[in-house]
């Protein structure tokens, strides 16, 4: 095996490796949707985030426009503060509502944005005014039972 | 000796070497001058090869000084040692050719590593070295296609590729047929004279060595027991030398390994 033939094979090998990594990045990992070249971060406070995790998608009308990049607890307001990193291609009114939703009955939780009617757009560092916390199944059931119990004597 | 007035190329003074507690060599004095071919002889396992490794700097002496070209091997750092080794050539027992390279590339190896030569000059040099050992025709062969004697000759060409001042041979005659043996012996002498180098050869082949060398050291049990020119050795009255030169089975080097008296061992007293 002469030296140039080895070079050729190594070249082919490296090219194949690059192709495989590109395939993984573009076709499997969908590069365009998960790491935005330009983005901005806003915050949203929730009284309860349920099972929301960092890297959960942020969706508007079902389209992924960003991801949750940080979750922390504000000890003064006793609320969870969630950082949302959004693609700069999209902008939303300032009175946009943020809510924590669940995909399907038992699926993962994500943040849904409900655009409002304000003319000024959200800027980096802004905070969502109106938010709706996660629906916690136990609370829901508890409330349901409580209501049932309250209804019963009237009958 | 004709050239004893000249300064020594290799000079060992009171050298001692031990692996832990096990002493391999002790009190070795040895001198080699430029132009000389010196043989170190002795039975198997007597420390001859260790002596060669001390000179090549692969091992460091536990005591005493090993000087090559007026530099003390024991005090050199890696870079200095490598600089010195570029002026040494060594022929290993079975050639130690690089099995993944052709004969040509094997001989070209030290030149490629140490000298930036244009490919055409490199080619001429390698072919000249191969011509010197009579194997120019085999430059395209792989080491596995060579006989033992031919492999040894290629390794010799590789050892002299950088025109060394000192060539060391580790058992150059081991396992060769009489013709190859004679060829290697003549090559050692001729190359040494042509290069104006010094050669040290570790061997136990008495007849061939005595016919080509200038001086002989006999090593036994880690000590030099006899030394002299080939004529002095042949005429020596020393028991050990006599036994060695005439290949007698018993003498100062006993036939039997040290053991309890045979009667005791067989009757079960000495044996456990």
């Amino acid at each position, binding site marked *: 095996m002469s030296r140039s033939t080895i070079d050729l*094979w190594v070249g082919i090998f490296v090219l194949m*490796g690059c192709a495989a990594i590109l395939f993984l990045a573009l076709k499997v990992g969908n590069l365009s949707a998960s790491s935005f070249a330009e983005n901005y971060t806003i915050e949203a406070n929730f009284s309860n985030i349920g099972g929301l995790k960092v890297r959960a998608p942020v969706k508007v009308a079902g389209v992924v426009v960003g991801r949750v990049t940080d979750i922390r607890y504000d000890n003064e307001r006793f609320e969870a503060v969630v950082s949302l990193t959004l693609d700069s291609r999209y902008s939303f009114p300032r009175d946009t509502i943020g809510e924590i939703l669940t995909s399907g009955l038992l699926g993962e939780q994500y943040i849904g944005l409900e655009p409002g009617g304000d003319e000024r757009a959200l800027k980096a560092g802004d905070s969502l005014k109106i938010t709706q916390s996660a629906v916690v199944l136990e609370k829901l059931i508890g409330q349901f039972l409580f209501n049932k119990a309250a209804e019963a004597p009237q009958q | 000796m004709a050239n004893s007035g000249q300064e020594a190329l290799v000079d060992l003074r009171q050298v001692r070497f031990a692996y832990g507690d096990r002493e391999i060599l002790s009190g070795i004095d040895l001198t080699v001058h430029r132009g000389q071919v010196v043989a170190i002889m002795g039975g198997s396992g007597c420390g001859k090869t260790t002596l060669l490794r001390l000179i090549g700097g692969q091992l460091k002496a536990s005591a005493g000084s090993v000087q090559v070209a007026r530099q003390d091997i024991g005090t050199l750092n890696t870079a200095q040692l490598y600089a010195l080794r*570029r002026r040494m050539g060594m022929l290993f027992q079975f050639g130690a050719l690089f099995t993944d390279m052709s004969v040509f590339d094997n001989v070209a190896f030290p030149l490629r590593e*140490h000298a930036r030569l244009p490919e055409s000059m490199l080619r001429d040099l390698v072919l000249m070295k191969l011509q010197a050992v009579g194997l120019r025709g085999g430059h395209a062969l792989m080491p596995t296609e060579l006989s033992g004697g031919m492999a040894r000759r290629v390794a010799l060409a590789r050892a002299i590729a950088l025109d060394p001042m000192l060539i060391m041979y580790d058992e150059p005659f081991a396992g060769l047929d009489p013709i190859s043996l004679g060829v290697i012996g003549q090559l050692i002498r001729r190359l040494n004279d042509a290069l104006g180098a010094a050669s040290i050869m570790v061997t136990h082949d008495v007849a061939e060595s005595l016919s080509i060398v200038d001086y002989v050291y006999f090593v036994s049990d880690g000590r030099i027991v006899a030394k002299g020119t080939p004529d002095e050795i042949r005429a020596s009255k020393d028991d050990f030398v006599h036994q060695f030169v005439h290949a007698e089975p018993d003498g100062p080097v006993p036939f039997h390994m040290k053991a309890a008296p045979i009667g005791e061992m067989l009757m079960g007293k000495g044996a456990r």
Partner: protein
Amino acid sequence: MIRKLGAMAIDGVWRLGFATRFLFLLLRYSGQSFLRLHLTLREIYFSGVLSLLIILVSGLFVGLVLGLQGYETLQRYGSSEALGVLVALSLTRELGPVVAGLLFASRAGSAVTAEIGLMKTTEQLKAMDMMAVNPIARVAAPRFWGGVISMPILAALFSAMGILGGWLIGVAFIGVDDGAFWSQMQAAVDIRYDIINGVIKSFVFGVAVSLIAVFEGYDCVPTAEGVSRAITRTVVSSALAILALDFVLTSFMFRG
């Protein structure tokens, strides 16, 4: 018996120390070997290109099996569209780097150990040293870097091939919806979190396997038996190192 165990433990620690020192020597002399790039290219050829076949074929089969088994399980919960997610995540995060690493250790690692061991046995390393050529720079470092460079490429190829295998079974044979297969996969697989971490894993495995292979060859007892033992040790310690490192890396990377 106890004395034997103690001796073994001391020997183990001694070898670990030597391996660490060896790694430093290797890195120190790597500069010299990068100046002679064709040496490293040659080793990429031997450990990378020549491992292609076994990696590609194994990747395909692992993907096929994942597709079949995954479909069986997911179907019970009525979410067979998630097959793409299952195949892609298991391959990029775990199976790609780990299985490719194990195959690499037994295919290329053992070959490197055998080659260096034989060079030691036939005194080629000593001869090189006597020719003032550092065997660590000339023999060990190119083989080490050849392995380190080859390993992530092989792992990526393994993962890609496995995903294609899963697609083949899931979409082409069983009939899972093609669009759902890819879109669910793309929604769930994250570049930085899953793919880059997988590449980092395979790189770490590449370093571990190459170091073990080169070290065992360099450290072997220079006899036929010593070389064969060294090869066995390369495969065994590489496999253990890969699995242990995988656990450590996974617990760092995929927490929470």
